[in-house]
């Protein structure tokens, strides 16, 4: 039974979604319990599958039982790195689904079943991307997660979300198509689709590895993934898509979609092409790190200019993507940059979840979307504020939150790799984050309580629906329990991830050690 866990991670939410398709339209009260139960099952299986990888090293799960020769069938591969990510995805999904327990408006209840089906299928896609060992299968699962996320963005009632979703769809499809084309070039040059097998060919067969076709394949795959993760020049779709979509969707999309794309990039560099091949091309590393520096600075500066909480967070995501891409490309001798980037994927998923849950609570229960409306927040909503403060401190990088340690490892990589510009950008961005969040703290602590003379602007912008039937009065009250649980749990996990950073870093580095190419690099 235990060998079956890797498959069970995906199958639980898949069957959950199908079950909702069968019964959810007739009885929408059944949707939440099914979704919650299936995500808990996949969290348990992810824990089990990852534990096996932590203790026994990476292992394969052969779909269909076809083991020999390698690559005739699709392989699921679990190692320490994606084991950690699987757990993180499952945790974020479980917490985000708790937040959606009450639909946000009367009109939305019609679409509850569709929402949960898309939600679960998105989780299926993300789990699949993380665990698969086949380059083409990765494309199919990227498309599963992409199509569901278009639906989750467009499911809102706001007027602008459809347009945002359309742009997201165009960009996302182009990104996925570039990836597909890159895999086609790889297949043409190597005749294989299995990631392990392609890697073996590229390390043993130098004529293939150095041919222009393989170089182009890498560029195509890289650009495709960059579009998907909203890396700097290609980030245009992200702020609109994530800030105009309903709160329930953004709590799942914002923490996970971009982070999983970063994981795919790391996986492509580490397992598909191999670090020696990637860094064997002089100049690439410097170029990408400079791009990342621009991404960090641009994201931070644009975040400063925003008045809305969600939009500000979206631009911070753009900056965070810069951290991770830059970190992964630092090419420092001890791979601290790559380690820090991998750790930051986990840390950033939790931080973003925490902050988007906070923004979701404010918007869903109080209709607040502007930073200026937060006056008196700390006094009226102490528990919500605690969660928010921890998330914000992690974003700034204050110890002992996880954000501090990821920045610590990234900076260490930057120094050892000889990239002072990256270190500088990281510090400036931390400073900007501090300015941003302390401005919010100040308003929330000293600002006037909006209950006194607050002119509540209905339907500001186009978030459209005011979902709080009785809460037309703008009085801030503590959020309901089912919204507080995920927020505080996320905050607690941020602290835990920070406190146990040593063990987690060790696990991540065993994953690098497992791929034989980097062992020499590590010593």
């Amino acid at each position, binding site marked *: 039974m235990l060998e079956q866990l890797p498959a069970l991670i995906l199958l639980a939410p898949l069957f959950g979604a199908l079950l909702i398709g069968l019964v959810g339209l007739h009885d929408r009260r059944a949707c939440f319990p099914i979704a919650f139960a299936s995500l808990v099952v996949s969290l348990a299986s992810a824990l089990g599958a990852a534990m096996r990888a932590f203790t026994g090293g990476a292992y394969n799960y052969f779909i269909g039982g076809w083991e020999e020769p390698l690559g005739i069938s699709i392989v699921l591969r679990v190692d320490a790195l994606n084991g950690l990510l699987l757990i993180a995805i499952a945790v974020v999904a479980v917490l985000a689904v708790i937040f959606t327990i009450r639909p946000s408006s009367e009109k939305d209840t019609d679409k509850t079943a569709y929402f949960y089906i898309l939600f679960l299928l998105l989780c299926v896609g993300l789990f699949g991307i993380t665990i698969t060992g086949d380059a083409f299968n990765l494309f199919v699962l990227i498309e599963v997660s992409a199509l569901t996320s278009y639906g989750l963005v467009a499911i809102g009632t706001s007027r602008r979300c*459809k347009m945002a979703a359309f742009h997201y*769809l165009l960009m996302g499809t182009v990104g996925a198509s570039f990836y597909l084309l890159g895999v*086609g070039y790889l297949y043409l040059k190597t005749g294989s689709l299995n990631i392990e097998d392609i890697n073996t060919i590229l390390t043993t067969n130098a004529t293939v590895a150095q041919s222009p076709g393989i170089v182009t394949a890498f560029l195509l795959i890289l650009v495709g993934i960059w579009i998907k993760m909203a890396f700097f020049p290609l980030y245009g779709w992200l702020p609109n898509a994530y800030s105009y979509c309903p709160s329930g969707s953004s709590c799942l999309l914002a923490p996970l979609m971009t982070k999983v794309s970063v994981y795919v990039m790391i996986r492509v560099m580490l397992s598909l092409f191999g670090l020696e091949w990637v860094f064997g091309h002089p100049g690439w590393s410097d170029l990408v790190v400079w791009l990342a520096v621009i991404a960090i600075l641009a994201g931070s500066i644009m975040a400063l200019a925003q008045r809305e909480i969600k939009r500000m967070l979206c631009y911070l995501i753009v900056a965070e993507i810069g951290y991770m891409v830059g970190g992964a490309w630092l090419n420092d001798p001890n791979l601290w940059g790559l380690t820090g980037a991998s750790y930051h994927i986990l840390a950033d998923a939790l931080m973003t979840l925490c902050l988007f849950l906070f923004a979701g609570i404010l918007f869903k229960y109080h209709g607040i979307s502007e930073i200026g409306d937060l006056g008196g927040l700390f006094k009226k909503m102490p528990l919500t504020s605690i969660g928010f403060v921890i998330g914000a401190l992690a974003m700034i990088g204050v110890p002992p939150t996880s954000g501090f340690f990821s920045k610590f490892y990234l900076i260490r990589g930057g120094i050892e790799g000889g990239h002072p510009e990256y270190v500088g950008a990281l510090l400036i961005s931390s400073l900007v984050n501090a300015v941003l969040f302390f401005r919010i703290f100040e308003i929330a602590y000293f600002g006037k309580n909006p209950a006194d003379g607050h002119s509540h602007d209905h339907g500001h*912008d186009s978030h459209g629906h005011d979902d709080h039937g009785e809460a037309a009065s703008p009085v801030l009250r503590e959020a309901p329990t089912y919204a507080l649980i995920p927020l505080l749990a996320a905050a607690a996990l941020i602290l835990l991830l920070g406190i146990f950073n040593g063990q987690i870093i060790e696990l991540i580095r065993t994953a690098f050690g497992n791929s034989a190419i980097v062992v020499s690099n590590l010593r």
Partner: protein
Amino acid sequence: MVEFLLNTVKPHFNFWVYVILMMIGLWSLIAKNNLIKKMMGLAIFQSAIILFYVSLGVKDGATIPVLDYHGEHADHNAAAKDEPAMTLPTSSAGNPADAYANPVPHVLMLTAIVVGVATLGVALALCEMIFKEFDTLEEDELLRKIKALHDDA
């Protein structure tokens, strides 16, 4: 010019065709103002990739990847040998597998076609809703109307 066509383009003409088609798609995806035309560009873009993949599996003189199947009996197998088109290898190396095209790209592209159709369906649905909300599918007008929406609020 002729030499260039013969030496560079001809052996790789399938790749040249796919690159040109793909660039037509990409151009209309970026440059066109109408959302439906953008979608058409997207469709051309994806079809070009499908063309690329399918052309990978082509072998000279090979047939479709459906085995010449006559059951298990020996006499039927003997009969099959009389049909040269199906079983005779065409390559000088004499590998019997050369009689059949490579099935893998076909399988992959079946998947990609379905994905493309699904994406276009969602894009159409979005266009329909955008038209219902804003009464236009021209991007510049849409952006103007959205901006007005923002300023009103």
